[in-house]
């Protein structure tokens, strides 16, 4: 067996992927915190943002990104109003399956919009120059990796400030701990949920911008695979807390990046089996999450 060579560049790319997945994990974790809802359709928010970037690629870059944020946040709010709100009292299983249906619906709509020009897939290339590498301490790092890491750091920093230093952040933390009691004490459910949904939308838009740089061809299943991987990472990390969920998302992205970069393709065919076997093992040993503090209560029942 030849020793797997993990060079600095692979590590840099893996950190970039981990940062993107951490952003998605925060988006999923925020909504789960206040609604107890696993939003499988989160990937379709990213997909909608990516299509917006593709359809506005003739615009100035700033305008294109602004359009992306507007579309994704609007869609995120619409999803909350039309789907999440009527389901608030339902079991987690019903909520999850409904978000499947929403994801399915959004993909079908995207397909219909996409095939108007008789081809599947639209290029979103306005930020392609971010794929150029810059040398950081002798290592070639693509600019988009730096953007991803900076975006994740800034987003997490601002979020931490919001949650720790503002009263609405306090309300959100209270809602995430015990929603019924928080409401009894005067926390406005719709404000807290609305804020979580808007923040999740902004994060999805950021992910759309970063992912389209790396994968410029936007298709209806854009970000679907990433969402599944992030959901696995979030649960393995521990979905009950925002920081364990985020760490779970980062870890699975980083691990995927390192393994894919280090092993030649012909040796990675059974890699998904190995990774998912590891996921099962972690879940059996730490069902509340890998990073959850020891002795933290039983896991949510579905």
């Amino acid at each position, binding site marked *: 067996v030849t020793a797997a060579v993990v060079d600095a560049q692979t590590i840099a790319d893996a950190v970039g992927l981990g940062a993107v997945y951490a952003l998605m994990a925060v988006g999923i974790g925020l909504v789960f915190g206040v609604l107890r809802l696993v939003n499988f359709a989160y990937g379709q928010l990213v997909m909608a943002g990516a299509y917006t970037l593709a359809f506005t690629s003739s615009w100035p870059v700033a305008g294109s990104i602004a359009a992306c944020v507007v579309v994704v946040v609007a869609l995120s709010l619409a999803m909350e109003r039309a789907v999440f709100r009527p389901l608030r009292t339902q079991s987690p299983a019903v909520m999850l399956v409904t978000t*499947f249906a929403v994801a399915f619906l959004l993909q079908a709509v995207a397909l219909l919009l996409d095939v108007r020009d008789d081809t599947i897939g639209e290029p979103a290339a306005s930020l392609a120059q971010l794929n150029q590498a810059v040398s950081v301490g002798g290592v070639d790092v693509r600019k988009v990796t730096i953007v991803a890491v900076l975006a994740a750091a800034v987003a997490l920093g601002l979020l931490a400030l919001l949650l720790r230093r503002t009263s609405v952040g306090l309300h959100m933390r209270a809602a995430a701990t015990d929603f019924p009691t928080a409401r009894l004490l005067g926390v406005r459910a719709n404000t807290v949920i609305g804020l979580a949904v808007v923040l999740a939308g902004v994060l999805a838009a950021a992910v759309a911008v970063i992912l389209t740089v790396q994968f410029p061809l936007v298709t209806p299943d854009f970000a679907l695979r990433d969402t599944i991987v992030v959901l696995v990472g979030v649960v393995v990390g521990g979905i009950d807390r925002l920081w364990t969920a985020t760490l779970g998302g980062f870890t699975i992205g980083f691990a995927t990046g390192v393994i894919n970069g280090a092993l030649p393709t012909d040796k990675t065919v059974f890699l998904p089996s190995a990774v*998912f076997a590891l996921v099962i093992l972690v879940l059996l040993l730490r069902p509340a999450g890998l990073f959850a503090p020891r002795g933290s209560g039983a896991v949510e029942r579905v």
Partner: protein
Amino acid sequence: LRRPLELLGPAVVVAVVGVVATFVSDSVEIYFLSALVSVAMIVAIWVFVGNSGVLSFGQISFVAVGAFAAGVMTVPLESKTGVLPDLFPVLRDHTIANVPSLLLAAAVGGALAFLVGMPLMRLSGLAAGIATFAVLEIVHNLLREWTKIGPGATTLSLVPETTGVLQATVGALIAIAAGFAYARSRLGRLLRASREDAAAAQGAGVSVHRQRLWAFTLSGALAGFAGGLYVHLLGSITTEQVYLELTFVTLAMLVVGGVGSLWGAVLGALVVSGLDSFLAEAEQGIRGLELPDGTRLIALGAIMALMLILRPSGLTGGREFGIPGR
């Protein structure tokens, strides 16, 4: 599940679908057959998910192994070395008939479910959901890459198309009867007790792990059986056909019908299949009504989402078949 009517109702409905299928044209018959195979699949999933209250994304992996076991073992011997050259010799040099292949599919599905269920049935909630999803991923990965046990990433073709009206109807009825028998047995009642309150059931001496494992194994066997019916219906299959999309569609069928009852599983499978078939035909144009291409998927997604939002307990509300007023 007490009264015979609760078995008879769904069984009669399925039988009627089977009888109607003999009167329609060949191009429409396929819709009826796939609806009947869906019934078998959804009942298989219901046996575990409905009775245990634990969400599983892994049941389609048992459909997959059943489909590939039945498919690989019924490809005619003379073409086998040509289309499946890398198979283990024991698989390559033998071919079995249709009915044994369905039994084999059930056995393989049940055995795999028992093996993975032993550790996994300790989990509940989201952890169980993700762990069973991991099973789906592992089985898909192995079937796709390991050419000694199957066709790998290529299409498995030349499978005899033996799932006709009779076999599909009888297959669906077998699944319903097995599901009914399990649900009204002692084991089924113990598992439903643990679904309502796991701690109380455990306190009363129910081994939740063991009861879930029984249901998971039976569900796996029925799912494997349904996979066998499925591959003999299609005649050719790829690993992608028994993976994510089928997992989502089958779970949606179960939830649309109502997770809590056998009748819900049967009704959900028939209603969603019927809707899907109608929309597919409408895209081709029926009686002056012609929908543009692509509306089928949108309408299906929208209707499923609307049903789940407006009636989250499903069409049956989780109740068994009954005649109103009785």
